[in-house]
């Protein structure tokens, strides 16, 4: 990930444009600094993780899907 200021500014603007978010006047600098600090924090998360750490618990078939099928019958 590019961390020079020009690249960060491009990424910042691209993210806002992609999501259709407009920063009100006078707050751009604060939001940009927050973005830079946030990206720096995210960069501290380990990128090499054990395969057993997959987020499988996000969806667990059988817990709720059976109830959905039951209702649809």
């Amino acid at each position, binding site marked *: 990930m590019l961390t020079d200021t020009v690249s960060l500014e491009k990424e910042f603007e691209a993210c806002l444009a992609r999501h259709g*978010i407009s*920063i009100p006047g006078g707050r751009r600098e604060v939001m940009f600094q*927050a973005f830079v600090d946030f990206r720096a924090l*995210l960069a501290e*998360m380990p990128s090499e*993780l054990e395969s057993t750490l997959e987020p499988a618990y996000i969806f667990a078939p059988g817990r709720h899907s059976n109830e959905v099928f039951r209702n649809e019958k």
Partner: protein
Amino acid sequence: MKNNELENLTIAEVGRELRSGHLSPVELTQSYLERIKRYDASLHSVVLLTEERALEDARRAESELARGQDRGPMHGIPYGLKDIINSKGIRTTCQSRLLLDNVPGQDAEVARRLHEGGGVLLGKMTTHEFAIGGPSFDLPFPPARNPWNKDHFTGGSSSGSGAAVAAGFMPLALGTDTGGSIRLPAAYCGIAGIKPTYGRVSRRGVAPLSFSLDHIGPLAWRVEDCALALQVLAGYDASDPGSADQEVPNYQVQMTGDIRGLKIGYLRQFHDEGADPEMVAGMDAAIEKLVELGAEVSEVTLPSMRLFQAVQQTILSAEAFSIHAQHLRERPEQYCRNSFERMGMGCFVTGEDVINAQRVRRQLTAAVDAVFKDVDIIACASVLAPASRIEDVEVVPFRSQPPVTAPFNATGHPALSLCCGYSQAGLPLSLQLVGHYFDEATLFRAGYAYEQATDWRLRRPKLENTEI
């Protein structure tokens, strides 16, 4: 019975007075309503006083108790609901311009349980906008103020709930906690507040901020009142996808005052740097008291706070943004600046970031559980200093210093904040106790024993009479 006598009774003691007929639910409710009207103008803890509903609930409780019908420990007990918790037929604004006219057609599950349990709804409580944006002065309603010193912050986002309980406006209020929003006001307002295990209490009918980090829980003057309230609130709800189908134990049974042999791991690393010396001294003294009472204390460590912050912030930003994206795009002016900016951080999070955060979340959870192999409770800071002046609160899109409560939202472990003294300036000090999953009972056991062995609960804030 006078209100200043009432405030020294536990919910269970008030319940006994109601059942014996020495106290009427209607008189009790009127007493609290008068107190709110007399003192809340300078504290702004209540965003909507539901006087008519309160008296209706109280009259129902009175007539039911008189004929021997007992709905349980909350029967006839007044409470408040954080204004992101749906109340049927009663405006629920989330403190936002977007929802000024929102009147839910159904109670949230927690509101339903309290109503079915015979509780008396006194009002909807001030909150930060959508439980994230605050303290803010650009909202339809002013932020709540700390009863110990009204120039100071209550903590948030369950700000009104914390302030109202501390001020003696109600014995119980509900809050929600996504990064500390029950425990922070409990800490700053000098009361007890518990974020239960994730899934312990239904989130149905509560405006979501972050699906997998949101928790609902009680704030009360004493730990034992939190326990009593959780007894009513806890339990499986099939309509909440995150609800845990786990038996609810009797939380009262272990609250005997005996904590001999309880193993406590004292986590200093979260307050090793930057903590107020009075707060550290207060926590250390609380640990010593727990040792005096028979607990066995050892030092423990966890992964770095930065890692917990990365995980919690990523998930919170992504989930909050996904909930609010359309309105953030189309109606940004309807949000207060802080809500807009904090939720807007979600547009900087990639799918890769979110998945990584969920994976690291499992790693961090495993690390906490590894510590719990050897201890029953982890004791640590809930805040690093007493409440600051409200204008000094860092209201920014990204906080450089995260709340020390947030790690246990990421892992879902239950966590209780309780008062452990007062600063020289008269502001509360606090301690956080964290437990094994679904072991709120041990937290209550330790917190109850500590409160019984100290006299912090005898001290109340002095309020300014603002009645017109």
